[in-house]
């Protein structure tokens, strides 16, 4: 085994045997999982809001509102079932479920889903209702003024018998909604109630203007048939989720690359700092050449990064084929069909080498993390720029500013994976990649020299001294 491989092996084993490494593998998916599922978990775990409606309008607005609330909840449930069908069995199943819902309600829709994916149908639970409309307390019902009703509502809410009480007063175009709620920050139902009452007011205004209920219903049912078409779509016209998937995958890959490069380079930096501060570097230098030491360390940490990536990819794949097999198939088609996986691999290697070599060179000058912070500050600022623009790249991958930024080598490995899913001119792909490769080679050469100088240097070194030392090729 060559020296380079021996150093790489030591580097890999030194980290892979630590508890921290395995914790870090679990930590990121856990954080992402919690962040993604937090709103859903909160929604599912939240108890339905106990709502009472006091109607002082004399226009039967309360019962009409209660009816709309139930209808909206049913509509949300139907939509959730269709989303589950899309995730578990793809767009065709979603369309079948929609048709079944229209003809036979949610039960029919669920039966269709069961035909496509029985386990998904079995797992599916309708979203919990946001609110249950309860009868208003007698005192509030007996009230004749909003103030009197408000006193009763206030007591009910304060004594936790109800979560919210809505007092409707006024008439026709001048309806007043007083919502008493226990939630001081943002009443849960405020938006829904405003929208529902507004809708009822609109319908009633139209009825008063002579529009028949049939015409109103027909008008409500009016929906344009919208077709999203693109010559870039796989079908040549209609855009499907599969057509949009490459951009989403590109964004995810860009973020993942950024995270992996930053993590890998940071591990490498810490490793070099540890060896520098514990005076191991000088011993290593007497046993192996600088390219062997740096190469070994970079390779070892790359092994760690790939281990993490493989475990995450495997975990993600298992989750996909179990919970969203339709999406899994599309993902494979996107990654392999358009060759995105090879581009992602190339940018991962380029980005990692560029930053890893730079961080290793800097680490050789640092006896502690504090020393490193001074030197890394400007690099970290540069690294945040592509993250700011990555989100933008999803919407408009061909934006001129993104095209320009893609030519800046430190940004290329992160911006190009997001853009590559779109229609990036081949010249841009080849050109930016070539510039990235050349820059990486230059940075490796510069960092190799820096590593040699830094490994034998003593004392605190600022950025100016560092550059001076390297340029003069002298060791301090």
């Amino acid at each position, binding site marked *: 085994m060559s020296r380079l491989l*021996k150093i790489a092996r030591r580097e890999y084993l030194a980290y892979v045997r630590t508890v921290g490494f395995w914790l870090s593998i679990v930590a990121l998916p856990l954080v992402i999982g919690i962040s993604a599922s937090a709103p859903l978990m909160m929604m599912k775990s939240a108890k339905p809001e106990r709502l009472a409606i006091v109607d002082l309008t004399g226009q039967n607005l309360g019962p009409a509102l209660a009816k709309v609330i139930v209808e909206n909840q049913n509509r949300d449930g139907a939509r959730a079932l269709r989303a589950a069908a899309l995730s578990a069995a793809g767009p065709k199943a979603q369309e079948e479920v929609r048709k079944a819902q229209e003809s036979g309600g949610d039960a029919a829709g669920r039966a269709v889903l069961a035909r496509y994916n029985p386990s998904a149908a079995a797992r599916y639970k309708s979203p919990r209702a946001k609110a249950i409309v309860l009868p208003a307390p007698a005192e509030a019902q007996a009230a004749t003024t909003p103030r009197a009703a408000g006193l009763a509502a206030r007591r009910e809410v304060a004594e936790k018998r109800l979560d919210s009480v809505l007092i409707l007063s006024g008439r026709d175009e001048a309806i007043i909604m007083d919502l008493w709620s226990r939630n001081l920050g943002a009443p849960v139902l405020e938006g829904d109630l405003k929208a529902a009452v507004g809708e009822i007011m609109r319908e009633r205004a139209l009825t008063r203007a002579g529009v028949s209920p049939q015409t109103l219903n027909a008008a409500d049912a009016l929906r344009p048939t919208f077709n999203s078409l693109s010559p870039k779509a796989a079908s040549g016209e209609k855009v499907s989720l599969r057509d949009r998937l490459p951009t989403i995958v590109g964004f995810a890959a860009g973020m993942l690359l950024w995270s992996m490069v930053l993590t890998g380079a940071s591990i490498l930096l810490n490793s070099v700092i540890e060896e520098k501060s514990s005076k191991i570097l*000088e*011993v290593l230098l*007497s*046993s192996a050449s600088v390219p062997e030491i740096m190469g070994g360390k970079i390779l070892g940490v790359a092994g760690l990064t790939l281990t993490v990536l493989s475990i995450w990819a495997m975990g993600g794949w298992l989750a996909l084929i179990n919970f969203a097999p339709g999406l899994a198939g599309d993902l494979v088609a996107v990654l392999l069909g358009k060759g995105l996986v090879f581009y992602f691999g190339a940018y991962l290697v380029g980005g990692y080498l560029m930053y890893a070599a730079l961080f290793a060179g800097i680490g050789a000058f640092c006896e502690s993390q504090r020393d490193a912070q001074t030197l890394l500050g400007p690099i970290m600022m540069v690294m945040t720029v592509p993250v700011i623009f990555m989100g933008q790249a999803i919407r408009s991958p061909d934006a001129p500013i993104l095209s320009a930024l893609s030519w800046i080598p430190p940004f290329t490995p992160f911006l190009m994976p997001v853009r590559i899913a779109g229609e990036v001119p081949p010249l841009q792909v080849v050109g930016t990649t070539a510039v990235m490769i050349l820059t990486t080679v230059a940075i490796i050469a510069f960092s190799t020299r820096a590593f040699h100088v830094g490994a034998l240097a003593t004392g605190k070194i600022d950025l100016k001294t560092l550059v001076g030392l390297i340029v*003069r090729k002298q*060791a301090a």
Partner: protein
Amino acid sequence: MVSAVSLEGVSKTYDDFHAVRDVSFEVPAGRITGFLGPNGAGKTSTIRMILGLLPVSAGRITVLGGDDAQKARDRIGFLPEERGLYKRMTPIVAIAFFAGLKGVPEAEGRKRAKAMLEAQGLGYAMKKPIKDLSKGMAQKVQLLSALAHEPELVVLDEPFSGLDPVNQQALEAMIREIAARGATVLFSTHVMQHAERLCDKVVLMARGRKVFDGDVATARCAAPRALVLEGDLTAEQVAALPALGTVTSEPLPDGGWRHVAVLPEAGDGHDALKAAFARDLSLRRFELKEPSLHDAFIVLTGGQA
């Protein structure tokens, strides 16, 4: 005599600072050579140039018959001035790892590491993390790491620093063992006693320059012998004795004085002693003091480090 290391007019400068100036010497193969000088004398820079870790600013260095020490690195063992090992590694793994970098197969490296650790009384600690070892034990492990590949040339930069007297003695024994198996040893130190006990040859450095290069006995000759006289006699009485040079005096804790009189070249102090007895001076003790390497160093550097 064959040289393991040869320096010809070697200099090293950092910007305007001359760390090493026009240094030439040879390290004879199979012998122990001491590289002596105070802190900042240029020893570490010279050692780093010998190992090829630093480029020379001027001059030429030959190591184990070649101009590039990096090419001969597998035949060289090096213990740097500031010691360091991977703290979570065990001694046996650390020694095998560094031996592996020098071309020793892993299984053989582990076998050698085990034998060496047991020979040094560290067998019980071979599987403990290095962070759990005492400083002395860790230094022994590091030295073993530099020796496990059985190098032809062993370069030790201040190997005794930080060691207690017992471990210093153990290290001296190890250095003698290395030389006994035929390897060349070059070690730097600023403590002259180690060199006096161990070295066949010494190279003395001061302020980046070589001030002496030769065997210990010759180095000692650079300083004069002295006659030590203790008793209730005054400096004037000693200065009046025949065939003595400069006299330095200091009071003794239990009363009386200690006078050290430099003897002229070839002088043995007999005439002065005869005169002292003839004059019935109050003399409690006398001694003919041979110069130490330290004395020689002071003379050779003019008392300036």
